[in-house]
């Protein structure tokens, strides 16, 4: 089993690199439209016109533990928002669950230029984080609540607070037990792996696009493998 895992990882890494080179040579591939991210682009335009800030929450995860990848996806979107904020003067307020993620927030703000907006470290407890972020929403009155990353049930608290203030929302989570809440409480949602594709859609960085392409190919391979395995198992071959 270990050998199979190593082979899978090596193949995935190789294909990731090939996809990266292809994107650099041939340019950006055509990606299927995602309505939530199209709405996000419109929201940036509204933020420029209205002057109200954005609120970005990269989830209730940490950098360094099991939910690092989802937290990095949320931080990638925060980086994009800070970059747009620095270019067009949109204040970006961000709330953090864990200080390891907060350090990245400070880094993005330093790199892309301050355009207003605060960085809040709330608390490394999920319920407390959601309550604190709800208070930030109430005080700052952002035009958009962007919540993307590893969320738990506390997401409901945050989204209801935004909804009661009339704040538009774009949200995404990876935990299947939370996805029903994400889908039902927000109109524009990103489900599961779409969270990882968000940065590729918006920033169109070659490495992010390569990751999306490689994921698609590996998914096809897995589907074929599962289908063949089910058929063989049904026929009694294995």
């Amino acid at each position, binding site marked *: 089993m270990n050998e199979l895992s190593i082979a899978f990882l090596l193949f995935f890494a190789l294909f990731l690199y090939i996809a990266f080179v292809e994107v650099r040579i041939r340019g950006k591939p055509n990606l299927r439209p995602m309505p939530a991210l199209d709405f996000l682009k419109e929201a940036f335009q509204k933020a420029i016109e209205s002057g109200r800030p954005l609120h970005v929450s990269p989830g209730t995860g940490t950098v360094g533990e099991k939910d690092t990848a989802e937290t990095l996806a949320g931080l990638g979107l925060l980086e994009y928002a800070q970059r747009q904020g620095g270019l067009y003067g949109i204040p970006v307020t961000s709330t953090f669950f864990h200080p390891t993620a907060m350090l990245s927030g400070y880094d993005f703000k330093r790199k892309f230029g301050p355009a207003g907006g605060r960085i809040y470290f709330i608390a490394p407890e999920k319920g407390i984080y959601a309550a604190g972020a709800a208070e930030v929403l109430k005080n700052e009155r952002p035009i958009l609540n962007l919540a993307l990353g590893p969320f738990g049930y506390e997401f409901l608290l945050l*989204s209801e607070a935004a909804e009661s203030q009339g704040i538009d929302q774009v949200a995404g989570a*990876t935990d299947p037990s939370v996805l*029903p809440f994400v*889908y*039902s409480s927000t109109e524009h949602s990103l489900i*599961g*792996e779409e969270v990882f594709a968000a940065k590729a859609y918006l920033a169109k960085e070659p490495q992010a696009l390569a*990751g999306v392409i490689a994921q698609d190919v590996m998914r096809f391979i897995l589907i074929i493998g599962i289908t063949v395995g089910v058929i063989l198992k049904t026929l009694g071959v294995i």
Partner: protein
Amino acid sequence: MRKVIPILVAVLTGLTVLADFFITHPILDLVGRTLLQWAMIVAAFAFVAGLLNIFFTHTSRVFHREKGWGYSIVVILAMWTVLVFGFVGNGPHGYVVSWIFRYVQYPLQATVMALLAFFALSAGYRAFRRRTLESTIMLLSASLVLLGYAAIMTDLWPVSALKEWVLSVPAMAGVRGILLGVALGITATGLRILIGMDKPYSD
């Protein structure tokens, strides 16, 4: 050179811990364990940065009399109280800190999360009125599951059995699919950092 060193450190560290997962060797085990402990220590020190952020952010709100500055005073006082008594009372299991946790933090957290039930209901109410195909399917399955959970207290066992089937077959199939996709996304993100393609850290 200034850009290469961080990438090199990240790649080598990641590959070492990954190799430790697959290969059993005493030296590799020792190095891998040490690196993980260092990561935990660094994460713990990041809390110091978090504490400073809380202190300066809320102090600024108090001085500038921004909206909600009264609550900021409460936050600062609570933070210093727990810190001081934590240092004085030998850690988190000291009498004062334990009392604060048991009679202040725990009831407050439980109360805040008890609101989830109400918010889940209003979110569901809002979603099911959207009149789309997805929300209709969600409404039907939610009705079946809710009825199944309620019927567990009665003799309506066929409803319970149907609920168990819905949860374990179609719902689980969807969950497995999402989990597979998420796992691929996590693997791609990790590999991008391991081979130096992506840099979520600063220079």
